[in-house]
């Protein structure tokens, strides 16, 4: 799960070729790795890939700041 998301972000979404490989603790939002359209693309990807639905109220920093956060969110979601 971790790798799928990291790969998708690194290969599809980032604005620049990242200098260091993306890690699950990297701040995706504050650092500008992803902009809002990119974030939405990631959400659409996650919804598709893991067959869940992310409602607007879940779209908060707490759930999407890092790939780690996303994993936690998804785990809670699927429990």
């Amino acid at each position: 799960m971790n790798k799928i998301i990291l790969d998708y972000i690194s290969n599809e979404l980032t604005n620049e070729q990242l200098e260091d490989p993306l890690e699950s603790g990297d701040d995706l939002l504050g650092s500008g790795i992803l902009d809002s359209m990119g974030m939405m693309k990631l959400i659409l990807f996650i919804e598709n890939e893991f067959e869940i639905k992310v409602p607007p109220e879940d779209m908060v920093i707490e759930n999407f700041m890092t790939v780690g956060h996303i994993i936690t969110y998804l785990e809670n979601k699927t429990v």
Partner: protein
Amino acid sequence: MSEIEKNINETELTKSQLAIWTGQQMAPDAPLYNTVYTFDIKNKLDVRVFRSAFQYLVKGTDILRTVFNTKNTIPYQIVLPNFNFNLELVDFTNGFNKSEYYKWVELRSQAKLNLAKCPFDSALIKVNENRFVWFLNIHHIITDAISTTLLHEKMFEYYSNLKNGDENNIDDLPSFEDYITFENKQSNDIQNHLKQEYWKVKIDKSYTLPKLYGNENKYLKTASERITLGLGLDRSKRIKELSKNMAVRSLTPRLTIFNLFATLLFTYVHRISNQNKITIGATAHNRVSQLFQKTPGLFIEIFPLLIKLEDQDTFLSVLQRTKMETSDYLRNGQPGMASADISRGFNVILNYMTSKFALIEDFPMTSEWIHAGHNDPAHHLRCHIYDFDSTGSLEIHLDFNTAVFDKELRYLAPKHFLCLIDAMLDDINQHITSASIITKEERNELLTGDVISTNSKASVIAQFESQLVENPEKIAIRFKNQKLTYSEINNKTNQLANYLAKQGVSKGDIVAIHLERSTNYITSVLAALKLGTTFVPISSEQPKERVQYILQDSNCKALISNTVILRKLESKKINLINLDDSAEDIENQTTTYISQASELDSIAYVIYTSGSTGKPKGVMISNASLANYINWSKGYYAHKDSYVFPLCTSIGFDLTITATFLPLVTGGELIIYTESSIGPDISILQVIEDNLVNSIKLTPSHLALIKDSDFSSSKLKLIIVGGEDFKSSLANSIQDSVGDDLKIFNEYGPTEATVGCIVSRYNSDLHIETSVPIGIPIKNMSAYVLDSYHNLVPKGVIGELYLSGTGLAKGYARNTKLSNERFLVNPFQQNAKMYRTGDLVRFNESDELEYLGRVDEQVKLNGFRIELSDIEANLNQHPNINNAAVVLMDSEKKAESKDIINCKECGLPSSYPNIDFDDNNVCHLCNSFKGYKEKTDKYFKTEEDLIQLLTSNKNDNRKYDCLTLLSGGKDSTYVLARLIDMGLNVLTFTLDNGYISDQAKANITRITEKLGVDHIYGATPHMNKIFVDSLHRHKNVCNGCFKTIYTLSTKVALENNIPFVVTGLSRGQFFETRLTEELFWDEDADGTTIDDTILEARKLYHQEEDAVKNHLDTSMFSLDSTFNKVQYVDFYRYSNVSLTEMLIFLKEKADWVRPTDTGRSTNCLINQAGIHVHKKERGYSNYSFPYSWDVRLGHKNRDEALEEINEHIDEDEVHRMLDEIGYKKSDLDNNKKQLIGFYTSKEIIPSVDLKLHLAKHLPEYMFPSKYKHLKEMPLTKNGKIDKIALRTLSDIQLESDVVYVAPTNEIEELVESIWKEVLQMDRIGIHDNFISLGGHSLAAIRVTARINDELQTNFALNKIFELPTIQEYAVYIESQLMELLQQ
């Protein structure tokens, strides 16, 4: 382009490109898509290398080699393989002149770019050796903000490499073609269907674009001006801080900024348009992959964000909704999802650009985005936010379309926007309407009014008396053949004053004047003023109850009236001055009287106006207010002749004050036209015919009445219109027919601000909008246009009108609460009040106020705010319409109300139509029943009588003595058991309507077996149709079911030679279906005459054209013999058994068990569906009425009745059954608000024509759903359109083609009043059909009885079916009465 090679791919345009291409075609010469940047480079530059680099840039960037052409009008683009562009060097080194430079940039940036040849332009400006400016102008069709940053960076990459000699070391920028392919694939991808659907739904075709400051871009002008609003470091910092707030922040920091500005823009547009539902278009960058992030070209698409704002919203609550909206926007706003439809849905753009220009080593530079002076004409306002150069300070550009924002607004609007930014930064939790957005200068301008007190010290009566010195022998008043000079009228007035004084009337008293328009009226008013009293004018045609109320509420000391009028009044408590009886006494008084000097502060008159509570409210106007209006009008309306006014409008309407006083204080003449005692007051027609007056004051509706009169030799010089919205078309038509010598004025003013306080002179050249503006405040009056927070709204924006100044009333008589609600503390002036008018207005471009309707007429329909007057104005523009009115019919008012009270005695709910309760909460039916209860006793009989009747012609050839109707319920079971007990041979009959409960059926089987009687089930395949018809006609299922039972059982009885059908109707049901109070009015009436009438009614009942008649065989009912062969007998007419007795008997004899499977006391399952529909449509259960009678007659107690009426209804089950029988539930849900358009015209205009006409001017949601042609517009006594009357027309009346005509004579009025009472309708036209209105046999009994009672006639019951309209019946009555007279 030098060379064009063949075999180049012709590619389709993306959606965004197509939108821009089309936009450019619409305005071919406007540089509306020129995307211009200048880069101010502060270093040495090798010009040769720079030009070479640019050539490399063109060579390596396909969009710069793209040109556009059309094939069969379809545009396509091609990328040329080679293209030479010679970068021009502009040399400013010979003395750099800033203004010259800017002029150059301005001119050059507006240069037209040729899409077919070269969609870009560039130049290098040399300022000096160390400073260059790179000018780059690219057509939007091939670029966007990010695209420009990519080109910029690439350009310097080429430059550096060339400079270093590394010519071939650079990758070209990626090709835009990839995106074209991708976008095309996306928009056709089936997976994106949901997203496209989302936008389709989002784009509400009926959405109206907000009018910013009330303005529109009617001629689609493209010119726009960009105003830069530097937020500065401080505000930018505060915005960044605010965006860290947990409640504020969104997913990303940039998204937070975006949402904050979207919130601000929503709020701003709401504040400057007074519209609640706002859509703004927001740009999406669409670079959704790493490749696209590096690709130059036009990627952006614009998608709408839509929010509904309410006054109680805070910035934060708007932000929260914006966040949700944005998240949907991002999810669905993917490449290729935009469409032309979508982009028509907004006129305000939010463009938040996050792109930045790269920092180029060795070349410190600042960029500037140059506005080319034009924008898409659909974009009235564009708000760009960016920080291109990473300064930390956000830049806001506001592009104002100059047709929408004039020069002044372009100066003010940014300030307004900034006010909102500051308000949000100060406190995001404050209401969006709490902060004022206007500037100090605007405030000062809006508050300037002639408020310096220059009040005259002379009261109106003093001014009248001064005419005695100036014009004593001039004619002051003409009335019929009477002519009175000033001194004569003064003498009469003095005599009356002396008489009144002797009757105890003295200064400070209140005197009601209830008279026709007459000399007596004028002398009474003048006498009242001379005495220093307050007069209360009450027009002669006021209904008795209203007069009584006014007399009581005004606390008046005396009532001046005459014999004819007094006849209808009852109150004798006050001092009556009957001018007829006292004529001699008055004439004997001395003709001198010294007027009491009344303080200007004292109350001159109290005029009662309609109140929303239904009770009129008295408006107290001081002598100072009256004098202020009269003094102003004296000068303002002056023409070269002295005023000759008619007194032709209602004295109870303050509009009439003008004519009452203006001629008499100026030495003019007043010609009095009295009202006719019957019918509408149309003296105005006589006034025009007589052609004696030069000045007239009236309402627009009255003016419309005389519109087509012959004015060829008219003396009219002055028309003052007031009281209603004044349509320009009407003003124009009058001006045309009377000529240029006529001055027409539109005077606006509620009674609470004394007659008129805002005025405009009609100018046919200037006043081309649909309504004549109301104008500017008169002397000593101020007008404020405020929002719901009492902020002054900017000019142009709609707000509510508040008034202040000398003309303001002292409040409402004895109603401090209401006074305090409407007369508020004036926040703009110390120690002053302001009156809340409830009228919506705005300032137009000429600074005149425009009336836009009532706040309470501003109705909300499906979430849209709609001004009814707007629709009316547009209907009035239809060439064939004379007058139009639009009302919102609110059938929801019928819905079950929560605060229902039930009659203390019978339990009848207050939601039952036309029910009155006394102080003890007892209904009027109970009370009136007490008066004729004894008489009803003779209708009821004993069981012995029944046995006698049923055995009267016992015949051995007959198998059965009677047929009895058995439903399986307790009442019918008891009937059966008793009949058996009486020793009768009984056939039992049950209608199986398909919904008899299983347990009820079991009861029937068990009982008939136990009692050993024959039983048959009747049925019809048409039952469901009958149910549906019954639900439409009667809003219940029972009526249809009953009629089916009667029809089928009569047939069975006829076939089996059975003489009697015995029903189990309860006594309460008799009063629902057979008996009416009227039947007992006749003292001599015995049971037989009542039976005869009921039989007549029954015959009529079976003739009604309904589903039963259409689907069952009812031929036998057309034969009178049927009613002789089969008689109906109501068992409970003969039995007075109580419920307890009944239940004991049933248990013993019949083994009857209460069914439990209906969940209710009934044995029929569909019954509750009928009750449900009835409750929804009528607001109460159809059992309320019969049960109340059961209680009244002592057959049930109130609690039992209420319990049964309030039984739970299983709505799911109801809906299932309604589906099953084919009743469209939409009929039920349709119980909604709808707009109805009424109009008068020579001929009926097809609805579709009206729709097409409105479609030119209005959005679809403002179309009335029905139109109704009226022969005449109903007017109130004051001559305004009577909207209450229109609103009370029933659905049936609206549906029918019958033209509404009010009664025209007394007989029609009488019949109308009786029909209204019996049919429980608020309004019936004389051509409405009795049967179509739902008048059935019982109603016929009641109507006929009442008419017979009133006229002492003996008309037959069936006459009403022969002559089913009021008009026809009235003619019949008249002929009958004439015949009687001749005898």
